[in-house]
């Protein structure tokens, strides 16, 4: 697994549950003492050991942890900004999700994000088929899509249906495009003060 993904999970656990929890998880999963490096590759097994250790210690299903992790990503300003480049509004953003893996590769060629296929149902519901090398991406995506909806100020019902070990279906029912005011997004980066 790419270090960026591992480091995101590390950051999520550390910020959400505290450094002590992270230390315990790192020890249990034999994560390197200095944590993950965002720009180095790691064995997939390490990622799952880390997730299982965290789920065990927090007494929380791994699924819930992954969804929270997806939502957490959107709270990171650089990630939020990169996601918001995907569309003018939430509907536009959803329509561009097909391009998400390509956008990921644009940023980091070796980043192996799951492939996404978006189809629209006659009732307007969107079906996202998520296919990754490892299970759990649908959960992360569901959490992320909920947080992005909030960011745009849209109201949407988002569910995840597991299909098999490597495939998830995420359904998005967009109820109200402009439910709340949403967060501001300027194309130009704010000047650092």
């Amino acid at each position, binding site marked *: 697994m790419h270090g*960026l993904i591992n480091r995101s999970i590390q950051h999520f656990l550390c910020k959400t549950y505290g450094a002590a929890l992270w230390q315990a998880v790192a020890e249990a999963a034999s994560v390197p003492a*200095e944590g993950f*490096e*965002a*720009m*180095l590759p790691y064995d997939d097994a390490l990622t799952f050991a880390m997730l299982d250790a965290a789920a065990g210690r927090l007494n929380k299903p791994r699924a819930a942890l992954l969804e929270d992790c997806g939502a957490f990503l959107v709270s990171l300003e*650089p990630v939020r*900004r*990169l996601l918001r*480049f995907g*569309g*003018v509004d939430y509907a536009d953003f959803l329509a561009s999700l097909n391009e998400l893996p390509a*956008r990921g590769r*644009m*940023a*980091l060629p070796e980043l192996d994000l799951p492939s996404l296929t978006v189809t629209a149902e006659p009732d307007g519901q969107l079906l996202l088929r998520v296919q990754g090398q490892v299970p759990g991406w649908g959960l992360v995506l569901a959490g992320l899509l909920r947080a992005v909806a909030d960011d745009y100020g849209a109201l949407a019902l988002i569910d995840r249906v597991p299909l098999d070990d490597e495939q998830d279906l995420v359904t998005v029912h967009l109820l109200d495009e402009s439910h709340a005011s949403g967060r501001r997004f*300027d*194309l*130009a*980066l704010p000047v650092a003060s």
Partner: protein
Amino acid sequence: MTPGLPQSPVAEVPVAALGRLMPMFLWLGAQGDIRAVGPTLAKVCGGNAALVGRPFGEHFLIASPHQASAADPMPDLAGKRLHLALRQKPGTGLRGLAVPVGPAAQGGVLFNLSFGVGINEAVRDHGLTDTDFAPTELAMELLYLQEAKAAVMSELLALNARLQAAQRAAEAQALSDPLTGLANRRALELELARTVAEAARDGAGFALAHIDLDHFKAVNDTHGHAAGDRVLVHTANMLRAEARRSDLVARVGGDEFVLLLRGAIEPLALQALGERVIARLEVPVDFEGAPCRISASIGIALSHCYDPPDVDRMATDADAALYEAKRFGRGLCIVRSTGARGGAPAPAVATAPPPAAPPLSD
């Protein structure tokens, strides 16, 4: 005319629709007056009202082609790639293409423009948004890529800094003796190689002092290894205190130390230094109430006795002087002030006074 293309003009497109298709179009009449502009170009230039009906040259400068004149842009621009700048904001560059409108350009010239590489600045300076760009433009991708690249670069820079710090720490570890913190044999060899190269280049002299503790084994046997370690650390601290900043103190074996003394030092001064070191080492070191008594034998070789300076032979001669000191009864410093020039073997001559004190006993 490209073969196979229909000759008839494309159906008339309303100005508003043209603006959606090409948000940065500019239409000049046959006289060079601005007839219409796309919404994004209008936004950048201060609005439609400021532009429409005004001469082209009032708002735009032609950066290239160089021979084109802003006063009468018609004849020169049609069909060419061009670079423009805004008169009001010369920092905003535009690039694009112009094509004639109507037969013999009677309908004027139509430009389609974009910001090119200056897109970042344009977005910032003019507060542009996603909707200001045509969906066919790669503007969003470019902006996205720039931010993604900045994030990746900062991660890489941080990684580099961490790796560099780790490398420095590993190097320092690999070059120092863990017990005393002095340089180890490897560090000494590196430093010697550098010093000899310097000496060969600019004739800077140096001296090599081999120091071997006397009665150290007895301290170990009588008081234990912890006491031995205490004595070694004490010796290291004392040598560090005697050395100057430019010198190097190394621990090269169990109770063997080497002092690399830079500069042309007189044999007498070296002799005095050696005797001072021995005197200080002979002051008993307290270990858990028990006095640990040691002394040292020292052999010193000077680089200016060798032409060219030869570290291996200096080391051999310093060792020979050291063993001579041991043979004379320990607790002595012997300085070799004659060496080998031009490769002749060094005679074993000691210039130190014969031992005045009886050999130390435990």
